[in-house]
């Protein structure tokens, strides 16, 4: 076996091999800017009065899936968290925990994706860390990114600001990431299977900050999907949300796999979607603006805020109504 192409424990030992890994894999991709010269920490110019700061860890299995890999997710996840808080993402940290025996070729693909996604988002990887754990103590690679962004002026965001009559907007189809990963996990070979929506929402956020207080709240529907986000917002409140099944945007492949596995696409994760609550008055203008932007072409109004205390209700295609509940624990396929 040719071991020199696999990550060894010594690559995390702080010695010659660690240096080699950093110089071969990290510096060429991220070595300009704050990382140049590999200081222990990044020194950054202050971008403004108020900052947004977040962190997220990525442990997806499989590491590569239709539409992206863990590298894309590590950038988009943190960029999107900053964005939905009304921030303009600026800097990321990048911490890798690699399992002994991990192939350098896969590592290179993942780091290329980090670079590609960061460039596309206009964010800089400003600092980082690499550790190697013994075989069996990790799942290939884990990535943690933290992010700093500049708080955009104009937004007054808060769940408590959502009121009856507001509109619930989304920038595209539901649950594509969740269904893509689930299909990949089970080696379901489809000719045209679901494709992850991993992507950034920052431009969509930047495009609406001038609507100011008319934008009430934003959130990215990751784990737990749209159902989890909506239920969290109405829980214990005097408001509810009404969705119309016929208006739900679903990619055909995602819908097909969800039907096959018996999983509600409202429960499946997205990684490039933004749920935005705004007043009814500005909703058409926001949709129009989004639809002209990349990752906003499929923007629609998903539903409206009602007085139905604490409940998310869907009007079904047959004209019936049902509760949209939060997903419970693992998403499990039904037996038949």
């Amino acid at each position, binding site marked *: 076996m040719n071991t020199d192409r696999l990550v060894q424990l010594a690559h995390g030992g702080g010695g010659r091999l660690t240096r080699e890994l950093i110089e071969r894999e990290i510096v060429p991709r991220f070595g300009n800017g704050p990382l140049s010269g590999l200081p222990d920490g990044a020194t950054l110019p202050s971008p403004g009065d108020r900052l947004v700061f977040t962190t997220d860890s990525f442990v997806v299995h499989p590491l590569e899936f239709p539409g992206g890999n863990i590298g894309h997710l590590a950038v988009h996840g943190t960029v999107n968290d900053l964005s939905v808080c009304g921030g303009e993402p600026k800097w990321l940290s990048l911490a890798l925990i690699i399992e002994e025996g991990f192939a350098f070729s896969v590592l290179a693909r993942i780091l290329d994706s980090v670079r590609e996604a960061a460039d596309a988002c206009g964010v800089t990887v400003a600092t980082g860390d690499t550790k190697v754990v013994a075989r069996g103590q990790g799942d290939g690679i884990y990535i943690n990114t933290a992010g700093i962004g500049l708080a955009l002026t104009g937004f007054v965001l808060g769940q408590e600001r959502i009121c009856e009559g507001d509109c619930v907007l989304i920038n595209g189809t539901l649950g594509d990431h969740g269904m893509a990963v689930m299909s990949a996990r089970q080696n379901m070979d489809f000719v045209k299977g679901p494709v992850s929506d991993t992507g950034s929402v920052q431009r969509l956020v930047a495009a609406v900050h001038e609507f100011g207080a008319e934008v009430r709240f934003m959130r990215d529907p990751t784990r737990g999907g749209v159902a989890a986000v909506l239920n969290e917002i109405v829980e214990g409140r005097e408001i509810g949300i009404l969705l119309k099944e016929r208006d739900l945007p679903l990619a055909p492949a995602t819908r097909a796999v969800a039907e096959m596995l*018996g999983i509600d696409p409202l429960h499946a994760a997205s990684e490039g979607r933004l749920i935005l609550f705004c007043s009814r008055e500005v909703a058409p203008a926001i949709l129009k603006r989004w639809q002209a932007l990349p990752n906003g072409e499929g923007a629609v109004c998903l539903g409206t805020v009602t007085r139905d205390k604490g409940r998310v209700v869907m009007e079904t295609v047959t004209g019936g109504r049902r509760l949209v*509940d939060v997903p419970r624990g693992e998403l*499990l396929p*039904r*037996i*038949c």
Partner: protein
Amino acid sequence: MNYIDAFRDPAVAKQFVRLIAEQGRALADQGRRVHIMEVCGSHTMAIGRYGIRELLPENVELISGPGCPVCVTDPGYIDAAIALAGKGAILATFGDMIRVPGSTSNLTQCRVSGGDVRVCYSPSAAIEIAQSHSDREIVFLAIGFETTIVPVVSIVDEAIRAGVRNVSLLTAFKLVPPALHALLADTEIKIDAYLCPAHVSAIIGSQAYEPFVTDYHVPCVVAGFEPLDILYGVNGILAQMLKNEARVENQYARVVRRAGNPKAQARMAQYLEPVDAVWRGIGVIPSSGLGLRPEFAGYDAEKKFGMPVHIGQQHAGCRCGDVIKGKLRPIACPLFSSVCTPDNPIGPCMVSAEGTCAAYFKYALRDVQQGGET
């Protein structure tokens, strides 16, 4: 995708709802209430998912039957599986089994405390696991009704052909018709008609329901799982009741034949023989299950490891049995939504997504609004 949308057409749904309302009114004028049992768990799910209960007249009630294979699994079966994992076997199972309560634990707990429990999407995964772990024993949790039985039993077929010896089945296969007989024979339960399962009927054929028509004068309508299928099915049942008829009507002719699937039936007969089976909440129903024939004992986990499955212990307050029989609506159970929730399921009806209680918890609107009233 047209195959999905064609059976969810809102305009057609509206027409059916109108027809059902008219027939419901005509029955109400005669002072009649109609109790339709939807036998299959997938029907229960679809009824919830499309809010179909809400569309029916007040005097037409859908009762959920024992058609969720996970829900009718006895705790003793889970106990046996956990014991096998304790002896080092890899358990391979369909997803929703991992939360079914055993007498004292469940498979999720078993996995947390070190048991090797793997969720599979397809029975063929059992062979793959067996081949990649030739030093371990793999036990597939072989549960399910007629639809699931044939693909699961193909594990034995494949293992014999591939010379794989380290895989076996812990069987708790169940048959739908004997359970339907048992329910009609129970005078405490009021069932006016059966909405018969879709995919099970594809295997056993619509002829399997003919005895219920002749012996009990109960209309039996085979319907698919799409919302229009279900509305059409209910409409067909009401039409029969208005005419005081009882016939087997196959409305799922795009999949179901009168004689079913002879190839699948032959495969079942080749590997399996009838056995008495324990149904959680119902008890033992004679010849209502299938077990491996003696010549396949080497693939029968109970025989291979000398660990017979015993009847297990159920939670004292759990009334899943009455729910499965259609005697009790979930919201009338004292544990429903207070103690027993999808996060903390006490009984199997709350465990599986197809379970009656889980479907009520997840989807019900009218019932929750009405509180405990039944």
